[in-house]
């Protein structure tokens, strides 16, 4: 983004300075987890996961319920400190940055988006500008323009004056994605961005983020349940099971029938969509058969 640095303080630019050269190269690593292990209480939810989130690409994190997808995202965002291993942003440990410096470069959209008071859609999207603004400053014309552009990106302009509580689940989700966009991040971490969305909006949202990844060189990491969406939109996929990586690479490498069957404990068919040639993943209805053959299931 050409105008990205203008709203920032000099120290933010200084932090970026040493990394900006390598970041401009294609596919350079924006965020990296190295053997990260983390969890809640005494139970590890993520075990020794190492991944790169690269600029200009969309990384999908998939796996069954409880595989540790959201926890991994929380580790990447700095919300959860790993017990062991590290997370690096632009080559530096995440702990070296203060929260504002992180917020200027990384946007996170949680799975659920509660909000306490009746803020309008526009107000929520403008919150994305907060890391770039001083405590006493009102949003400038440029901040407003960025927020409007983000609203337009997700077809939210007609809802700008509505209270967030009046929206449907899908509309609300799009508002929070627009807020992340208004943050003008280098890295976007999205937890289940396609939850609550219908097919058209799923396609649109992943399409938008793909486009942003390519055009603005944003590094996007998103957890998702829909394996076909992952195969369709992601450049690379991390397949998780029980907190550990079970497959990592381009969709056709990571999402093989063999791996998926093992990870999901169910027979999976992986083929090609005859219309587009894209990867098509379907469950095989083997549940009944396996129950007869294997009573322990």
């Amino acid at each position, binding site marked *: 983004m050409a105008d990205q640095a203008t709203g920032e303080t000099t120290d933010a630019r200084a932090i970026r300075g040493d990394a900006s050269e390598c970041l401009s190269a294609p596919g350079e690593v924006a965020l990296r987890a190295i053997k990260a292990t983390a969890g809640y209480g005494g139970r590890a939810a993520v075990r020794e996961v190492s991944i790169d989130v690269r600029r200009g690409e969309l990384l999908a994190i998939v796996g069954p319920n409880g595989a540790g997808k959201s926890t991994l995202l929380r580790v990447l965002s700095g919300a959860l400190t790993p017990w062991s291993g590290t997370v690096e942003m632009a080559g530096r440990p995440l702990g070296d940055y203060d*929260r504002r410096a992180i917020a200027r470069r990384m946007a996170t959209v949680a799975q659920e988006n509660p909000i306490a008071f009746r803020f*309008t859609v526009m*107000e929520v999207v403008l*919150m994305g500008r907060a890391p770039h603004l001083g*405590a006493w400053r009102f949003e400038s014309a440029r901040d407003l323009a960025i927020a409007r552009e983000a609203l337009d990106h997700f077809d939210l302009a007609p809802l700008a004056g509505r209270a967030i509580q009046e929206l449907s689940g899908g509309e609300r989700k799009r508002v929070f994605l627009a807020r992340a966009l208004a943050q003008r991040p280098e890295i976007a971490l999205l937890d289940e961005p396609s939850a609550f969305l219908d097919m058209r909006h799923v396609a649109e949202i992943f399409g938008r983020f793909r486009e942003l990844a390519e055009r603005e060189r944003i590094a996007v990491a998103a957890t998702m349940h829909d394996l076909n969406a992952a195969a369709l939109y992601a450049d690379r996929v991390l397949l998780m099971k029980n907190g550990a990586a079970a497959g990592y690479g381009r969709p056709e490498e990571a999402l093989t029938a063999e791996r998926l069957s093992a990870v999901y404990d169910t027979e999976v068919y992986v083929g090609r969509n005859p219309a587009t040639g894209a990867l098509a993943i379907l469950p095989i209805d083997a549940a009944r058969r396996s129950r007869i053959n294997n009573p322990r299931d």
Partner: protein
Amino acid sequence: MSGAASRQTRRSEGAGESGVSVHPEASAHDYLTPARVAAALAILGAILAATMLAALACGSAHLSLVTAMRDAASPDRAILMGVRMPRVMMGAAVGAALAVVGAALQALVRNPLAEGGILGISGGGAFGAVLAMILFSRFAGVDAIVPAAAFGAALFSTFAVYRLAQVDGRLEPLTLLLIGVIFNAFWGAAIMLINSVVNFYFTHSILFWLMGSFEAPTWREVAIVAALGLGGFAILMGRARDLNLLSLGDEEATHLGVEVDPLRRTVFVVTSVMIGAAVSVSGIITFVGLIVPHVLRSMLGPDHRLLLPAALLGGAAFTVAADLIARIAIAPAELPVGAITALCGGPFFIYVLRQEGRRAAVL
């Protein structure tokens, strides 16, 4: 009020069918602008000025403001400057502090029902003040010890209620309110206990803490409360945008650059100082911090850059008006102002609780 009107307008505009693009002028109401802040604060400032003028002019003794202004030796002047003016100023200062504290605490716990009185913070402050007053009654520095004790006990109460309301690191709104209610009852009982063992001389002052009153404050007390109130307000204003972000939850606020724990500590300490100052001079005055921010939020929107200064002016006006009613309702006798605010506040609290319950049920 025009603020209310514009808020209504933008809601109804937004409620129109989607697909119709918003008119460029209309979009100026979708977010807080400096012009909207100025307009709303000017109106509230005018309301406050009118209320204070009325409170100065009315009372059990007949008084002419004109005579008081013209003739420095007149009894009118003596009543105005010696009795009514400090009382009105004290009402304004305490009301402003309580309403700002209410708005800040509501942001902090993401619940419109939070308030110093309901959360037991005022009760803690009153207990501290009463205890200090009795223990240190023979010391010369008792005037300074009482507010400090009120602040210390208020701070303790805040932290205790907040800690106890956290379940697995999450703040449960209902648990918070229940624990606040329990603390309130506990402090009330503790004060009654002291009341039953001390001599008659203290009994009146203890009742005064329990009911809340602006009776006969000194100018020095007024100055202390006003200074602490304004200082606290200025600190909170510096965090107004962070308080907005906190509405999204601790983790989301963190992702938007807020250092949540330092923010929370700041708000706790500042609000405890403000409540401690208010309680040490006027006892427990409940519900101001609930009613004023709630009404203003529904009229002006939830942005704390406007809500906090609006609560400052609105809280002052509301409390001065309540005190005026307390003075003239059964003149020449007086009602405790805390009873007036509680009489308005009780039904209002139930109303808000039911509204919140309905909203929670929908979500």
